[in-house]
């Protein structure tokens, strides 16, 4: 038997003013499921980063478009899917440009962007990225949230 879950989907114009609208919805869903305040905040950042990537990409090329956000509510976890509308970007290039800063970084070489994917991977328990014509990010957060704490510790050392 398939695992039971509720599904909620929203579609927004690929514009920065709507990222906050998704955050409000996400807060509602996550608190309904019983996530703690800290975990809700992790979710808000990770999901916002994914939408911001989609929006900024659409914006750069002046193509407009839409972003679809789906929420899968399971007994023990929340799955969030963020899909852009078919405008592809180079995920491998994006991956090369992510990662934390380190204290030896020369100030003039500090990047002003590119932290989005890194934050998604740090704050969520599982992340999958599919790239066909567009990019779809699948992110999972478990209700206990023990996994992410371990991840963050590994990264900060």
């Amino acid at each position, binding site marked *: 038997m398939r695992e039971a879950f509720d599904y909620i989907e929203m579609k927004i114009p690929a514009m*920065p003013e709507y990222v906050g609208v998704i955050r409000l919805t996400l807060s509602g869903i996550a608190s309904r499921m019983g996530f703690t305040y800290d975990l809700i905040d992790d979710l808000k950042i990770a999901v916002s980063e994914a939408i911001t990537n989609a929006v900024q990409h659409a914006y750069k090329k002046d193509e407009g478009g839409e972003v679809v956000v789906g929420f899968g509510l399971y007994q023990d976890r929340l799955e969030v899917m963020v899909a852009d509308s078919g405008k592809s970007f180079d995920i491998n290039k994006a991956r090369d440009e992510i990662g934390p800063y380190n*204290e030896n970084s020369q100030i003039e070489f500090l990047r*002003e962007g590119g932290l989005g994917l*890194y934050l998604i991977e740090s704050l969520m328990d599982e992340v999958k990225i599919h790239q066909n014509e567009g990019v779809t990010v699948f992110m999972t957060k478990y209700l206990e949230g023990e996994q992410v704490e371990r991840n963050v510790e590994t990264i*900060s050392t």
Partner: protein
Amino acid sequence: MNISISLTEIGSELHAKLTGEIDAYTAPQVKESLHPYAEKAGVKMIVDLTDVSYMDSTGLGVFVGLFKKLKSENGNLILTGLSDRLKRLFEITGLADVMNVNTEVEGGV
């Protein structure tokens, strides 16, 4: 889902108080209001984040940009009033080690 920005200039110091959320929509507004001050020589910019309830990488990007500009003009950037959540964001990304991040609000303005 909005940001309000209040600025007070005292000699070569700029005190900025931000209230609201810093995300893809509001980060450009923060950048636009603060960057002109960072371009002058020797400015000490003190940004109070006590009432910032949400921030993500778009906000971090703005502060990295300001930090770089101020340093290149012999200025300084001081961030104050960070909540534990904001502190964590700076720590995860490694920025806390690079930039001057205080958690106390500076008194006696």
